[in-house]
């Protein structure tokens, strides 16, 4: 190799070193930023992969009542009216309202279901029994306790009652399986009466709203002001 080529090689190496010196801090910053971004959990990844409920642009916008926790009493439910393009078909409609319930309200403190949980399937049997199949996160991430578990199930049942009148009873499955309890307390082997007027009495569990009279009256007046 003659002297001229050697010079060019050294110049090239020098340029590469300069470029690397400029780029390296930027690369370091990017790695640090990426580390700060929370990695999606398995449940979140599953939820992203789950086929989203299709919405038809021609579906009319309807005011629906979603039952999230009350901002006055976190242990009580309060109806919040939101506008959604809802399908008239009951199964699709049930999926749409339950997915909205899972997505939670604007104030995330008022959500009743864990953010990781996903609705995997919803079936409606001819006798009016709705079967809602949720991912494992509903059982593993719902706070353990009679009160919190009752609030979670009650929010599902009351949201269905308000928006999908065809559903008379509700059966909750976790990842396709019947489980003993939601998170150690509330009995999921039983069905929950959703539409108390339509459902026949048959020894089913009735989700009873946990709401002190004062909070109920406040929620009612708030609802009537809307």
């Amino acid at each position, binding site marked *: 190799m003659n002297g001229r080529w050697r010079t060019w090689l050294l110049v090239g190496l020098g340029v590469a070193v300069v470029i690397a010196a400029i780029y390296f801090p930027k690369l370091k910053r990017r790695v640090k930023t990426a580390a700060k971004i929370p990695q999606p959990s398995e449940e979140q990844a599953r939820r992203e992969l789950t086929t989203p409920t299709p919405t038809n642009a021609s579906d009319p916008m309807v005011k629906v009542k979603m039952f999230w926790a009350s901002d006055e009493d*976190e*242990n009580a439910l309060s109806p919040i009216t939101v506008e959604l393009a809802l399908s008239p078909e009951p199964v699709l409609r049930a999926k749409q309202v339950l997915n909205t319930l899972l997505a939670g309200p604007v104030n995330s403190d008022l959500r009743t279901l864990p953010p990781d949980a996903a609705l995997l399937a919803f079936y409606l049997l001819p006798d009016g029994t709705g079967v809602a199949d949720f991912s494992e996160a509903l059982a593993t991430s719902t*706070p*353990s*306790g*009679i*009160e*919190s578990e*009752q609030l979670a199930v009650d929010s599902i049942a009351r949201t269905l009652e308000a928006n999908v009148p065809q559903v008379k009873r509700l059966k909750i499955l976790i990842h396709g399986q019947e489980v*003993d*309890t939601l998170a*150690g*307390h*509330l*009995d999921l*082997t*039983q069905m*929950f009466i959703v539409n108390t007027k339509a459902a026949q*009495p*048959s*020894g*089913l*569990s*009735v*989700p*009873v709203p*946990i709401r*002190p009279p004062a909070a109920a009256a406040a929620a009612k007046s708030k609802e009537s002001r809307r």
Partner: protein
Amino acid sequence: MRFPSGLFRLDRSVLAAVGFAAVLLSLPAWAQSPAQTIPAAAAHQSTAPIQTPPYPTVAPPPVQRTSLNIVVLDPAHGGTDPGARGAQGIRESDLVLDLTFQVRRALEAQGFQVLQTRSGNENPSFDDRSAMANAQRGAVFVTLHISSMGLPGTVRVYTLPDMPSRATAGGILNWDFAQASYVTLSRKFGDAVQGQLVQRFKGSPSTVQTASVRQLRTTAAPAIAVELSSVSVQDRGDLNKMMPGVADAIARGLAAFRPSYVLPGEPGAQP
């Protein structure tokens, strides 16, 4: 009709003798079994002869009312199941065990016999816990919990919602719905305890709540769940301070409930 006079006299005397003999023969039978007359209506219904039982008949003894003597306390969770978990490593399974010992002392002071579904860090199944209460006569069941959330310093009592009785034709209770016959009694018991709790813990409900608590469903006795709020407190001491009050309220509530304890099927039982 005309009869020859001699023959007529003979017939009358023969008939009188036969009639007298028949009356004499029937007397002993009459005297021995005066109650064996068949009412006219019964005679119309059946032509079969009525037979006396080959054994002496004894009137059934009057049904005795069972008195409430035993309390089965159930510290929830345990073993690999810690239940609700809060800040600073607070575990529901540990706290409810401490609470159980305090409730036990208060109940024993009232003269109740107390059984526990667990005394250490074990985790019996729901059915095993219910079986302990179902094996007793004159018992109530109290399962103790601490919630993940809720207004700190409050206590709620839960019973199952109404469920139709699932007794079989032979009167045998269906295990899966053993609580069905006791829901009314459980609610009365729950109201008595909740009434005591609300006096000590402001913000608690004044009446019992209903929820489909799994543990209660298979329990064939008046059964309640008591849940304190909550493991979300910053200091475990806050929950420890509540325990004597909760124990006293349960003991007093149970004493108040005692006169109402009439088991299904016994005289004075509510439907």
